């Protein structure tokens, strides 16, 4: 029997893996991928809560929105990564430290 808790554990794992990826990857593309994992972790929660708790379709619709948002975000994020590369000639986020100034 697959319960809500299983879904939540999967969501939490995804979120945590995403977070760790964002926090530790040096490659900007990897960081973006970590962000995708975090968003999908949240999606799992939306869908699971919709199915087990509330019913209806609002959770699933929200998950669709997040997928669309993630696509948009990936586009913007890759554009930023391109810009970083043009500026620093690398996509290693350790060198993108202009915000220190």
């Amino acid at each position, binding site marked *: 029997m697959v319960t809500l808790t299983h879904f939540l554990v999967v969501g939490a794992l995804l979120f945590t893996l995403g977070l760790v990826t964002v*926090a530790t990857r040096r490659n900007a593309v990897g*960081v973006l991928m970590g962000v995708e994992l975090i968003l999908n972790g949240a999606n799992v929660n939306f869908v699971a809560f919709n199915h087990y708790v509330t019913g209806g379709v609002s959770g699933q619709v929200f998950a669709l929105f997040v997928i669309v948002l993630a696509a948009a975000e990936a586009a913007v994020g890759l554009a930023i990564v391109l810009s970083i590369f043009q500026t620093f000639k690398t996509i290693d*986020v350790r060198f*993108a*430290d202009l*915000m*220190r100034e």
Partner: protein
Amino acid sequence: MENAHIEAVGHAAETIGRLAVHHVSYLWLIPLFPIVGAAINATIGWKLQRIFGKKIVHRIAVTAMLLAFGTALFAFAQMLALPAEERFLQNTLWNLLTAGRLTVDLGFSLDQLSMMMVLVITGIGSLIHVFSIGYMADEPAYWRFFSYLNLFVFAMLLLVMGDNFAMMFFGWEGVGLASYLLIAFWYTDPEKAAAGMKAFVVNRFGDFGFLAGLLLLFWGLGGGWQPRDQGLRNLDYLPKAELNATAAASTAAQADALAPRIEGVKVGPTMNFRELRDQVVVEGTGVKEGLLHKTVWGIPLLMLVGMLLFIGAMGKSAQLPLYVWLPDAMAGPTPVSALIHAATMVTAGVYMVARLSFIYALDPSAMGWVALIGALTAIFAASIGFFQYDIKKVLAYSTVSQLGFMFIGVGVGAYWAGAYHLLTHAFFKATLFLGSGSVILGCHHEQDMRKMGGLKKHMPITRITYLAACWAIAGFPWMNGFYSKDEILWKAFTSEHLALFGHPTPWLGGLIYLIGIVTATGTSFYMFRSYYMTFTGAYRGGEGHHDEHNEDPHAATATAMSATSVAVHASDGAVHADGHAHGHPAPAPAHGSHAAPAHAAASHAGHGHGHDDHAAAQDDGAHAHGGHHGGTPHESPWTITLVLSLLALGSFLTLFLGIPTAWTHRAPLLEHWLAPALAEGIAFAEKPPWMEFAFQGIGVLAGTVGWFFAMVLYKDARSTVPASLKERFAGIWTVVYDKYYVDELYAATVLKPAVWVARAFSRFDGTILDGLVNFAGAVGRSLGRFDAAIDRYLVDGAVNAFAAGTLGFGRSLRGIQTGRIQTYLYGALGGALVVVLLNFLIQ
């Protein structure tokens, strides 16, 4: 003019203190004209003089005087039209000061006495202004002279017309100022400037006495705060109950309305002469008794007041021992000597005593003091006058002596006689002074009578008027001096009530008479001596120095002094040069550098002094008889001779004011005129009429004796007796000629201690006070240093430490700020973790 209306005619009309008052509105014009004249000439006179010439300047001044004289005559006419007991013109302009019950107004009043004074001041003043036109014709600072002269007249008019002590004091100080300005008129000469200062300082001494007397009198009248209970000194002084009556009054009118009155007379502190006189004269007020019984440290108040006020008169009227400034005041231009130092200002003291006769009459000691000082001054000054050679000095000592006579008059209680002598003296002494001025002018500014002589054929008008004035002052019955002088001496002889310091001295009158008659003889002698030395014999001038007009006689001295200083400078330079020559063999340039200033001083000193426009003329005329006048004296211009004639005529005409009672069995005109203004009730001994005639005979005899000896000894300068007498009594002669060394005495007793005290103070100031100040400064400085240290190390340190800490903190914080997005993410995660953990823990 507005209708004069009568005020305050009380029911007790017989008492003398209750004169009717006529309010008029034009009296203020009399002093206004001169001050306006003075103001115009003082401010734009120099410009006017440059544009329009000197005429405009003296026209302004003389017009002002004539207008004042005209107004005074108008007032005189109005006064004459009134009945004798109503002759009091009052013109109150505005209130100057209200303090409790005391009100002081800017008010002018004319009674008979001040009317006489005003006529003398404006009348003789006008004549002297006219005289000055000719005398000062070559003066570059013409406008300044006339401005000062008008200023003086203004101050003098304030003095005699002011209706209260405050106004009188304004005038009193004002004439002192004008006198100072005029004595030091040629201020470039240090000697003259010093004479001006001397006059001012000596007068200040007298003024101190005057002021002290006034304040004491005011205190005695109840103007002071009284202790609550007699005997016990009460620290919290409370005013007498009656003084509080008008405490609430805010205006003069209110205070006046609230003031308690007794028989219509306002009682209480006052500065108004008429009110004060009413208070003293009207018995019911009790003021007289209060004054009589009041003592200060056991000394009767009135005696002290009288003596202190007279000290003021001593200064202003040049009495012993404060007379020393008057002879020195001759440094001023001669018209000034005539106007200020003979006719008007110096009589201010006499006027003051006569004005306050109602106070003086209350205390025989005060009167005896005045009379005695007057008599001593008369004989002392006359004796100095014997051997002076400077014609103006003779007249100066004569003035001092004659003022002594006036004080004998007012001192023994013959107030009208003193005032009459003031009047006659104003005429004949003005004649003498202006005559001497004419002589000085004619002899090209020579004042030494030894260098005159024989002027009668050169200056006939001057000579006649001078002789007439000599007759007047010597006391011959065909001129006015006889009548006033004889009246004074007769009254002195018959007075028996005088006292000295509280002890009755009936013999004092006789003594004063003796002194007076001896002085009269001496007066006649030295005046005719001056006449004979000046006008008879051969002209002894013509050689010696000849200065241009208006080159003051001291210029020669100044030249000599400059020459001396040049010599000194030159030799100084030489010494320096020598010193250098010996000390350093090589430096030849040192000669040049040191000698050059000496040469510069020489060329400068030759031209640097005196009036610049005459410097050239002086250089020409210093040795030869240069100039356009040649060596012979000449008669003065018509303005001068006209004035001399008018004054001499006045010296004759005024005799009719004082025809003695013994001749006509009527009171003399002036006595009758002045009676309501002066104190009554001074008792004189009754003597048979023959005695008065006899005394008049003695008076004429005294004058004749003096005249005779002067004629024998000095006429035509033939007699050799004066010279041999001078040889024989060289010691005494020198002492008298040097004025008894009074100036030296002053130098030793007053000046030296004063200088010593000043030095001591200076040393005190230099060492102790400066030491204290320096010590305080040092303490302040070290405190400042300490404070600076605190500031630097503590305050600045704290600030710097804080700044350094902030900097370090910032530096350490800077490490956190990496700029890497992931670091911030750690922060955010950490924060979220903390929030979550706290959430768990707090629940």
